[in-house]
């Protein structure tokens, strides 16, 4: 297991370094942060001075060597716009994203597993058809549209929930619900497919011959076997949530890493972009590791 983790860590490190190098150079091709930070009327001298302050006047290779040196000493640089360490900015936002992603994914996984399993148990039945049509529609609706409709209905018309923000637990309900829909639709389908295979497998036949009840057959015998592909998809979906839910964060005023990322990209706040990529990529790496461990826990054949 340890050597496996090490192998994975090295592979991820290679990807991460490649990613950061690529982002470093490509992002610097996309325009000058000085003219975005300063008003359009700012003189060329002011812009030059801004660039000087942030070392953007140096040749790109010099900037790169300096950045690599700083990163190796644990310094991810200052945000060009916020006058504070980029890493602080990112970890702050990422904490929110992490919470949002983990709560949403737990709910999605739980609900999708139950619904998908039941749909598979009576494949072709009414519940199965209903759930697949609804999940398909859910997956085809733009999320920003859904978010605004949800606010109009639940906050403005019914006044049940706050429109946006982060103050209380109630504030989390709408963003989570809107965020829930698309991964749910995808995972339900995977659970369903995987469960149909598992339920028609030989060991389920054995269990029926042993006189085991339907409940345990579905949720103990079949489900654990069906979980491997499901976990892979959950991982993929969780990874995309960890990258931030830009649209949801924008509409609900949720201070997550997605909005931070898009703002930093549009404002060319390079250090924040790099730090955000670093933090999210690390988180995704850790999550993939967790998924591999989950594989091993679920399936003894992988363990041995």
């Amino acid at each position, binding site marked *: 297991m340890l050597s496996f983790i090490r192998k994975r860590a090295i*592979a*991820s490190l*290679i*990807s*991460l370094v*490649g*990613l950061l190098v*690529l*982002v470093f150079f*490509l*992002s610097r*091709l*996309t*325009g000058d942060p000085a003219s975005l930070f300063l008003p359009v009327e700012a003189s060329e001298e002011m812009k030059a001075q801004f660039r000087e302050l942030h070392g953007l006047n140096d040749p790109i290779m010099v900037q790169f060597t300096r950045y690599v040196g700083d990163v190796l000493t644990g310094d991810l640089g200052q945000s060009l716009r916020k006058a504070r360490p980029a890493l602080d900015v990112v970890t702050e936002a990422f904490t929110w994203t992490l919470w949002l992603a983990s709560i949403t994914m737990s709910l999605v996984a739980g609900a999708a597993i139950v619904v998908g399993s039941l749909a598979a148990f009576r494949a072709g039945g009414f519940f199965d058809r209903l759930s697949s*049509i609804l999940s*398909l*529609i859910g*997956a*085809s*609706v*733009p*999320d*920003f*549209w859904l978010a*605004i*409709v949800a606010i*109009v209905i639940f906050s403005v018309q019914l006044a049940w929930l706050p429109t946006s923000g982060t103050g209380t637990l109630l504030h989390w309900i709408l963003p989570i619900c809107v965020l829930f829909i698309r991964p749910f639709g995808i995972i339900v389908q995977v659970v369903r497919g995987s469960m149909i295979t598992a339920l028609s497998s030989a060991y389920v036949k054995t269990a029926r011959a042993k006189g085991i009840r339907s409940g345990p057959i579905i949720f103990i015998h079949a489900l654990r076997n069906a979980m491997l592909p499901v976990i892979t998809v959950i991982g993929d979906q969780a*990874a995309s949530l960890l*990258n931030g839910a*830009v*649209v949801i964060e*924008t509409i609900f005023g949720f201070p997550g890493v997605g909005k931070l*990322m*898009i703002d930093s*990209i*549009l404002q060319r706040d390079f250090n924040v*972009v790099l730090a*955000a*990529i670093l933090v*999210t*990529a690390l988180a*995704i790496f850790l999550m993939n590791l967790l998924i591999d461990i989950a594989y091993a826990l679920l399936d003894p054949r992988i363990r041995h």
Partner: protein
Amino acid sequence: MTAHTTESPIAEEPGVIRRFGRMLLADKFAFCAAIFLIVMILLAIVGPSWFGDIAIKQNLRGRNLPPFDWERGWIWWMGADALGRPLLARIIVATQNTLMVAAGAVVISAVVGTVLGLIAGFSSPRVNQVIMRLADVIMSFPSLLIAVIVLYLLGSSILNLMLVLAITRIPVYLRTTRAEVLEIRERMFVQAARVMGASSKRILFRHILPVVFPTLTTLATLDFAYVMLAESALSFLGIGIQPPEITWGLMISQGRQYLTNAWWLSFWPGLAIILTTMSLNLLSNWMRIAFDPVQRWRLEMRGSTNG
């Protein structure tokens, strides 16, 4: 026994098109889906030339005209947008761009991803490693950053947007294909082909690819919806396709602000996306059966009892 006599029974069999047509008739849902998609494709081809002018004809005094006003011409039945342009015409005209962007992005990412996946699954561990790391990099590259970089460096155009959406989706196909190849290459019929002396290329494209293909088609149809929505989200964030070009995604994004007072602005294009997505899904389910010789009888039987 001559070539002639062995050829003759083939002529009796119905042609490929008729066979598939019959199989399509056998599945009512798939049939409707196919009709819908064919109509969409026709609209995509002729739409801009037939309705291009009326779709951009503005009438600031007839803004946000509500739908279902049967008094006016049929082109107004879906109402009008914020510049008083008929929504029906705009949806028809937008079909071309929408389908082109989505299809283009899906095709590019599917082809590139599949080829890379085939290579990764079938070549040396070193090449495999390089390709997989590349996939990781693309995977964790923020798609919005890709969008900004490509659109900034290459300029905003339909083609570049296609490129942006395609790049972000490559790893999906790559990883799926690779995983399948790793499994299929161990199957007996691949071994059998190797015993006959088949080249790697032949094994990949003649034996492995056809088996992976159904999975890829399913993936591609699902992606089609994903790409249309991603394109819409890019428009929402202001870096997607830009007016005067139109797509359904852009129409939803533009209609968003009128949600409370003119819902139809974003509803119709949304409906178009949902219907297209569902049709593609139904059709891909059908295709999975129709292109699999082992399953095909299900449709052929139903077809013959119906006909």
